[in-house]
């Protein structure tokens, strides 16, 4: 009883903060001719409502793909279609073909914000609440605190309710997937994850861990007996859910191909705008985007991504465990973010979601990462005039984390989950005891740099020769942080079970 009352309070807090942020500006507000993601979503409603389904992804006189053409998988399109129906009911002008282009009004903003809130309330928030209730080995109060911290994560709130996107839907489905797979409802889990992929193709960042974890489970049960049955069931679920989502586009080969071309726009380049990944940071020194031909860029990025996800994935197949699964999700998503082709700055949310899930296990590192992830989107948030809500929500999140978790009190090797790693290093380097201290210093340096850079970006004008100086610096610093985190998470994953085994031996 008490648990549910606190959970209600926490959810209400999350909702209040979300709605308060949504009162702010959105991307591309009053900026013709292209506007921003807000207009993109509105435009998709217009297109999906007014055009027959076979024209949604095709360029035509009624559907100019250069102007925010639909480039997300079918589920997003269906969602837009649904919203368009409601919009039509309230005010047909909002989705009138051609005439509604660039439509903005306070009522329309209210409508759009409400659609985000409803989607969030239906998909993401229940998943978070359920996930926290299902956590094992922690007290009820910790579960509730955990839920509050996850719901207050500023990155997602600012992008969904400030910038304007529906990330909570795809991330929510992914979270349902994680929940299902970790609680051994494998079929439901894979169904939810298929929905996530069919909502946003970026969810593919999470697909490898899902695949490896489920495969590992099958292996564990024995590929000749129960494992095989499970595998067949999983394959059927995935195929069925994909077919269901793509049914209208499977009628013709050309349709399917066109949708796929829209989803994976290879010709858009290695990265877009300023992203805190390796390629963008590296191009400060060398403009690889211009020097190398496109197919080589694709090959290079593929190789790097593949190499960096490989160890964690192999480990997960060999030793599938819900805990390892969560950490592998973090490391794989981070690898994809850092190395893969055509990455957006908002894709960091795909890494943040699994990091939120390990918040109660490694509060210090998780809080740090979540702060950096929000910081890495600073140029975008500034462009959308979201400085004020960003600063406030980040501080609120930080206060919440430090209040509920002993973030600074406990940074020993044990708490950082680095004990087994340190023990094995000490075999060669007996003096290797300074790691926790080093990490604390790194944290301080990182936070101070972020603070200073934020202050500079807000208050100073960049020199005329280098108009992008600050945003490039933000990306570079964040990228360095992310590389460090990649290393850290890989170490945790690789040394995890050795620690577990030694514990078992002691037992």
């Amino acid at each position, binding site marked *: 009883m008490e648990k549910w*009352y*606190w959970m209600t*309070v926490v959810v209400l807090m999350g909702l209040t903060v979300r709605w308060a942020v949504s009162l702010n500006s959105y991307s591309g507000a009053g900026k013709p001719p292209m506007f921003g993601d807000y207009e993109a979503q509105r435009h998709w409603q217009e297109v999906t409502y007014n055009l027959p389904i076979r024209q949604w992804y095709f360029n035509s006189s009624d559907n100019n793909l250069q102007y925010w053409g639909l480039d997300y998988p079918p589920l997003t399109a269906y969602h837009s279609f649904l919203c368009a129906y409601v919009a039509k009911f309230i005010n047909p002008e909002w989705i009138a073909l051609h005439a509604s282009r660039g439509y903005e009004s306070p009522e329309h903003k*209210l409508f759009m914000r409400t659609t985000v809130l409803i989607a969030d309330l239906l998909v993401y928030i229940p998943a978070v609440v359920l996930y926290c209730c299902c956590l094992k080995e922690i007290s009820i*109060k910790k579960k*509730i*605190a955990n839920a509050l911290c996850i719901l207050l994560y500023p990155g997602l709130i600012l992008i969904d309710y400030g910038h304007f996107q529906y990330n909570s839907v795809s991330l929510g489905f992914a979270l349902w997937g994680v929940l299902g797979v970790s609680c051994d409802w494998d079929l439901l889990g894979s169904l939810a994850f298929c929905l996530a992929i069919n909502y946003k193709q970026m969810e593919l960042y999470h697909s490898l861990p899902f695949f490896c974890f489920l495969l590992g489970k099958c292996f564990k049960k024995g590929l000749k007996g129960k494992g095989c049955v499970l595998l067949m069931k999983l394959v059927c679920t995935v195929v069925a859910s994909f077919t269901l989502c793509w049914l209208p586009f499977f009628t013709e080969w050309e349709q399917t191909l066109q949708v796929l071309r829209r989803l994976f726009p290879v010709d858009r380049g290695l990265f877009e705008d300023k992203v805190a990944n390796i390629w963008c940071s590296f191009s400060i020194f060398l403009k690889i985007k211009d020097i190398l031909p496109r197919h080589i860029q694709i090959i290079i990025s593929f190789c790097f991504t593949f190499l960096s996800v490989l160890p964690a994935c192999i480990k997960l197949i060999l030793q599938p465990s819900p805990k390892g699964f969560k950490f592998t999700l973090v490391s794989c998503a981070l690898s994809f973010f850092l190395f893969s082709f055509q990455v957006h700055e908002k894709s960091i949310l795909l890494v943040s979601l699994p990091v939120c899930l390990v918040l109660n296990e490694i509060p210090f590192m998780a809080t740090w990462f979540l702060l950096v992830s929000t910081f890495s989107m600073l140029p975008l948030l500034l462009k959308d005039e979201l400085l*004020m809500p960003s600063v406030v*929500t980040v501080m609120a999140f930080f206060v919440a984390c430090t*209040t509920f978790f002993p973030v600074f009190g406990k940074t020993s090797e044990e708490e950082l989950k680095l004990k087994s790693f340190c023990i094995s290093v000490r075999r060669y380097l007996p003096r290797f005891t300074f790691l926790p201290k080093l990490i604390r210093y790194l944290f301080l340096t990182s936070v101070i740099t972020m603070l200073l850079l934020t202050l500079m970006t807000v208050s100073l004008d960049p020199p005329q020769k280098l108009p992008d100086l600050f945003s490039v610096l933000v990306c570079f610093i964040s990228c360095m942080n992310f590389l460090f985190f990649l290393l850290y998470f890989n170490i945790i994953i690789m040394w995890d079970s050795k620690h577990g085994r030694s514990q078992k031996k002691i037992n």
Partner: protein
Amino acid sequence: MAAPGVAADGGHWFSALALGVTFLKCLLIPTYHSTDFEVHRNWLAITHSLPISQWYYESTSEWTLDYPPFFAWFEYVLSHVAKYFDEEMLNVSNLNYFNSRTLLFQRFSVIFTDALFVYAVHECCKCINGKRASKELTEKPKFILSVLLLWNFGLLIVDHIHFQYNGFLFGLMLLSIARLFQKRHMEGAFLFATLLHFKHIYLYVAPAYGVYLLRSYCFISSKPDGSVQWNSFSFVRVFSLGLIVFLVSALSLGPFLALNQLPQLFSRLFPFKRGLCHAYWAPNFWAVYNALDKVLSIIGLELNLLNPNKIPKASMTSGLVQQFQHTVLPSVTPLATLICTLIAMLPSIFCLWFKPQGPRGFLRCLILCALSSFMFGWHVHEKAILLAVLPMSLLSVEKAGDASIFLILTTTGHYSLFPLLFTAPELPIKILLMVLFTIYSVYSLKTLFRKEKALLNWTETLYLLGLVPLEVCCEFLFPFTSWKLRYPFIPLLMTSGYCAVGITYAWFRLYCSVLIGPFIGKTKKH
């Protein structure tokens, strides 16, 4: 609000609560703000650019300065910070001046001055007896009280959305109450005198202060049965109290006395030309009276008992402050309301004198004074309910009976503030915050008093739950009906009528608990 997992060390949780609500206030900056925003901007301009002799004469804007001098000085001080934000907002003739820097400055001035409120809450928490102290932090009376005060829904929406400076004023009031609890009477008296010269609405509770200080401070001891021991009267104490009040008043009113402007000042402070009820009807006795009049006049018209041509065409809820003439029932004069208020207050004052119960008795009397004046006062704002709600929070964490009164009073009182925010984007905010605060207060008090009988009986529960369909009717269904144009006042009428019942009931129950309640004299402590 939520600090379930807080390590129970020192005051760490308190700063987390205070910081949390401050962040929420910052998030509310871009919300809707009422004309009070322009009122305060205008006062900034008046105090900044005009000599003191002009302050209470200036009338370029319709929002003339109508708060006592200390508040004018407060605006004067603020204006010297404001000039670094935007000089233009300090120009008297810049009516309805607005830009983002002005907004930021004004909003932040409220948020920063709330620091006093936070401090006062901190002091109040010290005065709560910790008999019920549980091991669980979230079940400690101190924790619950600080949430109830810091996260108070009414204060949040009135100050940080609607826009007013109640936070630091209530801070002063709570601080003076805390000082009286701590037996630092002189400080308490000084703080309250200062408060009166910031905003004269607090005059409503002045009788409680006066009688309490006279009875429990100026008389050093009581007889064992609690009656006055006349020979223990201390002239020194009376004199020093008088001196404090006199000095504060002299500081505030002195300059205007020297300028011979006191009559003008008082005519600004007490504008009896305004109507019996505020633009929105506060849920008090007169709201029921007006509603009855309106219903009778409609019935009269239907039955052809009244001549339609003789009925004054004044829509009471059109949004402008104006006189309202009753059609059937006798019209009410300011004097009548004053007499009603005094009569309503009198029993509680008597109790305070004849059954002194220490600072808790004083607090009860203060709340009753606030509620009585809310029930019968002239031109009462619905915001005035906070005057009773906030002190009531102090009582609610100590006794189950008070907790139950608090729940009814707060929930109905807060709901009656809903018409303040009528814009669509703020609708979810007000509903979410209200539900958040109500759920928290109900469940935390239930947990606190779980050993006692249920806090709310089924009629009370049903009444409070009735607010949900009321809200659905008023804000979700009514706007889509054809009555919206013909009878636009119906939602407000229903709201204030419904809330008036709850507030009257809470007032009545509190009165009963004071009048019937047992005598706990000082003798018991000895």
